[in-house]
């Protein structure tokens, strides 16, 4: 086993950038922040590719199986001989894959932002936040300890909060960042409880040890966690479900998805980063990281499956009715993440049955590229037409040829990947955005080369990454898996995609009323989907009508009257006593001397005659 310690530099470089830009950025690097940050991330990206090459092609494999390598482990807080919080670096197929995904997508976003965010007042701050985000995600990926995951998990939450609320003088952005933070925090509560349950029964917080202990059906830890039950489900199911709840919050699974569309308030490159490579795949990554444990519990996997499938369907339906291009993309992300969860849910651990795991990771990998491409393309379009509404976009093919081709490639990629072909929401974007007939004269260029270059690179990735023999590298048990594309099987989804493309083309190709007719056909269902099935309203109803008056207000009353009252009582008593005796401090020195000698005499009398 050779030395992988240099991987530590991959997260540390963005951290250093964050510290430098965060502290001195606005003063000294107001113009050069982008270049500095991009250069440091470029180094990280190169290191990631070096690590990937070394791991996948040189020495990761022992006897045909990719090994889990702990490159570094440092015990940070020791609670008991077994339970400790460690900081470390893990090297295994999925972490190396995620390194590639995060660094390269983040790099593309950095480069794209050079043009997109040019001239922003808080340019350096923006790059500092981007670096923090990248650092936290890289730290999350490399975690060896489930508590380390949790810490970086929260860091991801904080930095996404900062980025979504980047335009802090826009009330909607502030509300969106707050919403994202509160919803994911709520989900993280479940995650934390899940960690506690796992730590309590598994007797360790180390991921490797935990998997080892909880996957052998005879171990005492496994017996104790499965025999203990609460409300009819075993503690294993509870722990895994709660951990999945954290993952669902970050990955925007139903019913914790409400923050995702609002998160579009941030700058568009940030949306690309959040949706493609970082925040939303954190949940999938978490489930994949703990997958051996998940595979021991049928009930938890069933929950993952159903939540994933339902979210995918729900998001796809809502996406069809939205008109804001970024919201459509947001729902399409939710849909794709749903597929990944679904694929994990139906998978088994090891061998042929682990196909779902492999497919999920593969989809995560490809999705990262074409979804960041879609967002950056959308960013380029928004940059040009100054509108998020898709009806304002049309006939841009001639004006923005590169963006057009890139977007087209991304859409075809998202629509046509077996075994889980995309839904027709993306074709709608494609046609609506680029072939919609009426055309406003636009006098902008297509943007600077820094905005075009990432599009070209990502388009190439979107075309190319599908051909990577992924099953050779990343499987649930590390052994290579033979996959054969079943042509007969893939006919149905692909033809469905093509039908959907043609259908939406007929809707939007020319000015016609076909789409209005379709709307009329679905009527109430369309309106419900347009209103996102009233999930937001439901949340508002629950919080405003039930939680606030029944729980919040009584607690507030108790806080004001009982807790505060007690404190006020102490304060008032002290004040009264002070007022009563303040006359003793007369300012006359001789009075004080008198008190002093009086005290001495009293003490003498006490000790000599009374105390004995």
């Amino acid at each position: 086993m050779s030395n992988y310690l240099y991987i530590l530099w991959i997260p540390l470089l963005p951290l250093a950038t964050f510290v430098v830009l965060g502290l001195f950025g606005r003063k000294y690097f107001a113009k050069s922040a982008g270049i500095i940050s991009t250069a440091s991330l470029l180094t990280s990206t190169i290191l990631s590719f070096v690590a990937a090459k070394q791991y996948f092609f040189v020495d990761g494999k022992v006897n045909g199986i990719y090994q889990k390598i702990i490159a570094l482990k440092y015990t940070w807080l020791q609670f008991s001989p077994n339970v400790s919080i460690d900081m470390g670096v893990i090297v295994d197929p999925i972490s190396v894959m995620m390194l590639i995904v995060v660094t390269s997508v983040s790099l593309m976003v950095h480069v794209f932002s050079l043009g997109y965010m040019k001239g922003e007042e808080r340019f350096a701050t923006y790059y500092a936040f981007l670096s923090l985000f990248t650092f936290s995600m890289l730290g999350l990926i490399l975690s060896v300890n489930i508590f380390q995951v949790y810490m970086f998990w929260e860091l991801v939450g904080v930095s996404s909060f900062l980025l979504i609320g980047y335009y802090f003088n826009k009330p909607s952005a502030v509300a969106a960042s707050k919403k994202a933070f509160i919803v994911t925090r709520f989900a993280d509560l479940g995650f934390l409880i899940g960690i506690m349950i796992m730590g309590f029964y598994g007797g360790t917080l180390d991921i490797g040890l935990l998997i080892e202990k909880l996957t052998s059906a005879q171990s005492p830890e496994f017996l104790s966690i499965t025999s203990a039950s609460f409300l009819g489900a075993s503690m294993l199911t509870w722990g895994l479900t709660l951990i999945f709840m954290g993952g669902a919050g970050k990955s925007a699974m139903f019913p914790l998805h409400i923050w995702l569309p609002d998160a579009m308030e941030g700058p568009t490159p940030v949306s690309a980063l959040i949706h493609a490579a970082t925040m939303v795949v954190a949940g999938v990554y978490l489930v994949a990281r703990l997958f051996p444990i998940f595979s021991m519990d049928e009930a938890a996997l069933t929950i993952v499956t159903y939540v994933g499938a339902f979210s995918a369907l729900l998001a796809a339906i809502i996406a069809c009715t939205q008109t804001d291009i970024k919201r459509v993309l947001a729902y399409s992300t939710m849909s794709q993440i749903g597929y990944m969860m679904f694929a994990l849910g139906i998978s088994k651990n090891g061998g042929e049955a682990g196909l779902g795991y492999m497919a999920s990771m593969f989809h995560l990998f490809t999705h990262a590229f074409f979804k960041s491409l879609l967002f950056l393309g959308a960013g380029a379009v928004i940059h040009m037409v100054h509108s998020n509404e898709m009806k304002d976009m049309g006939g841009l093919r001639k004006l923005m040829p590169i963006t057009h081709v890139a977007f087209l490639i991304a859409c075809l990629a998202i629509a046509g990947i077996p075994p889980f072909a995309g839904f027709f929401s993306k074709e709608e974007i494609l046609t609506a955005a680029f072939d919609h007939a009426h055309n406003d004269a636009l006098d902008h260029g297509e943007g600077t080369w820094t905005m075009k270059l990432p599009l070209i690179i990502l388009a190439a990735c979107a075309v190319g990454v599908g051909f990577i023999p992924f099953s050779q590298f990343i499987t649930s048990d590390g052994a290579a898996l033979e996959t054969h594309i079943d042509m007969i099987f893939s006919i149905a989804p692909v033809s469905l995609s093509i039908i959907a493309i043609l259908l939406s083309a007929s809707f939007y190709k020319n000015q016609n009323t076909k789409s209005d007719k379709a709307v009329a056909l679905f009527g109430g269902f369309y309106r419900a989907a347009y209103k996102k099935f009233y999930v937001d309203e439901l949340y508002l109803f629950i919080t405003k009508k039930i939680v606030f008056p029944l729980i919040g207000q009584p607690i507030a009353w108790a806080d004001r009257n009982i807790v505060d009252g007690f404190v006020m009582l102490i304060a008032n008593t002290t004040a009264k006593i002070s007022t009563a005796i303040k006359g003793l401090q007369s300012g006359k020195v001789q009075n004080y001397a008198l008190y002093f000698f009086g005290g001495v005499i009293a003490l003498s009398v006490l000790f000599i005659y009374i105390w004995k």
Partner: protein
Amino acid sequence: MNEIPLTHILFLSTALFFIGMYGLFTRRNLITMLMSIELMLNSVNINFVAFNKYLFPDQLDGLFFSLFIITIAAAEAAVAIAIIINLYRSHQSIDVDDATEMKF
């Protein structure tokens, strides 16, 4: 030569102490109050020396103690007079009844 009994000396020091205390309480002039405090300190010195002589004639601890007290008293007199001069500069008086601002 007749030995002076210990009680005589203790009587002297007690008298000195209470004369000092009386002066401290009744005089309004800060210099006089300082002198009264010196009287009290000296009465303690007398006690130390007397007890040393009568109870532990072969030791010197009490004498050393009184030497230290004399040193401290000198330093204390210097500080006190400095305070009094400052007080005089700010209040044009060294009467304690004129310096009663430090109250509630």
